[in-house]
């Protein structure tokens, strides 16, 4: 039953991924991408990582897909949707590259080498138990706590073992936020799109103020997390 469910979800995921890659209309591609994110969240549920599935839905479907939608709306292609895929001569090498990578990955999965005395991981089809009465070793108890109470365990781990990575990720998000704002803010000085000939002069005359504002903004915003 679970296997059948997995096959259905995987088939849907691959179809939506193909739709994302091949759809000519970019809005359709973005909607296919949302469906793909959702199938990946379903895979996380099948892997008993429900917290990560919720996070996947919140971050990817809730934030990333919406940002991509805004990007598509703001850069609507003037020539229409026919130019979103390269011309035919370049499709064959791209497909060849994809098939080659897939072949190499499948070869690697099928021919995994194992450490001495263990069976290779590619043959493992049983997860480590998390049952409460299965011998109740310490590793099983830890794993059961991690699976059943994943949000709390993730919080504890982020605050103790991975605290440096957590701080760096926070700093990265702050810098990305400030960088995105700085990139978008510069356009405010030139609301009407100038022609190409006069653009260097305009940018030279308009550049000192954003250049002076940009680094100081970044420095003042990025220093508190340190």
């Amino acid at each position, binding site marked *: 039953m679970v296997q059948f469910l*997995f096959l259905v979800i995987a088939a849907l995921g691959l179809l939506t991924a193909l739709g994302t890659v091949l759809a000519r209309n970019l809005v359709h591609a973005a909607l296919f991408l949302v469906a793909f994110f959702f199938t990946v969240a379903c895979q996380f549920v099948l892997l008993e990582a429900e917290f990560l599935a919720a996070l996947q839905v919140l971050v990817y479907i809730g934030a990333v897909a919406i940002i991509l939608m805004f990007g598509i709306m703001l850069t609507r292609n003037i020539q229409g949707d026919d130019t979103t895929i*390269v011309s035919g001569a370049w499709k064959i090498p791209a497909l060849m*590259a*994809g098939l080659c990578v897939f072949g190499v990955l499948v070869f690697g999965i099928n021919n995994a080498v194992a450490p001495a005395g263990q069976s290779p*991981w590619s043959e493992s089809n049983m997860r480590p138990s998390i049952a409460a009465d299965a011998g109740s070793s310490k590793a099983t108890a830890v794993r059961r706590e991690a699976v059943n109470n994943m949000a709390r365990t993730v919080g504890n781990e982020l605050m103790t073992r991975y605290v440096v990575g957590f701080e760096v990720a926070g700093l990265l998000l702050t810098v990305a936020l400030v960088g995105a704002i700085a990139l978008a803010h510069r356009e405010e000085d030139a609301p009407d799109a100038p022609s190409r000939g006069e653009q260097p002069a305009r940018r030279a005359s308009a550049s000192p103020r954003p250049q002076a504002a940009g680094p100081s903004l970044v420095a003042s915003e990025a220093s508190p997390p340190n």
Partner: protein
Amino acid sequence: MASDIPLNWFLYFAAASFSIGLVGVLIRRNAIAVLMAIEIMLNAANVNLVAFWRYGNAPAGAGPLPGVILALFVITVAAAEVAVGIGLILLCYRRWHAADVDRYDSMSG
């Protein structure tokens, strides 16, 4: 819950998704579509990480959730990457009036 799904199936799904994403990066001209294909590849890698976390035994000293935490950091970095990438694409669109990656050729010799 003793599940019967072999680990290989998750790996094959991730490999196929990764290959599709790679093909998407190569055959797409629109920059936002390239960004979407990159997201597909990152998600495929995340599926691999979580599958190995669930099916394998974590080494001593790695904590109970090594794969999940790594997937969490991948999601964080992907979100930051999309935000900055969309900002850059918007800037290039204002400058060149096109969102196609082969139109951004002012540095080619």
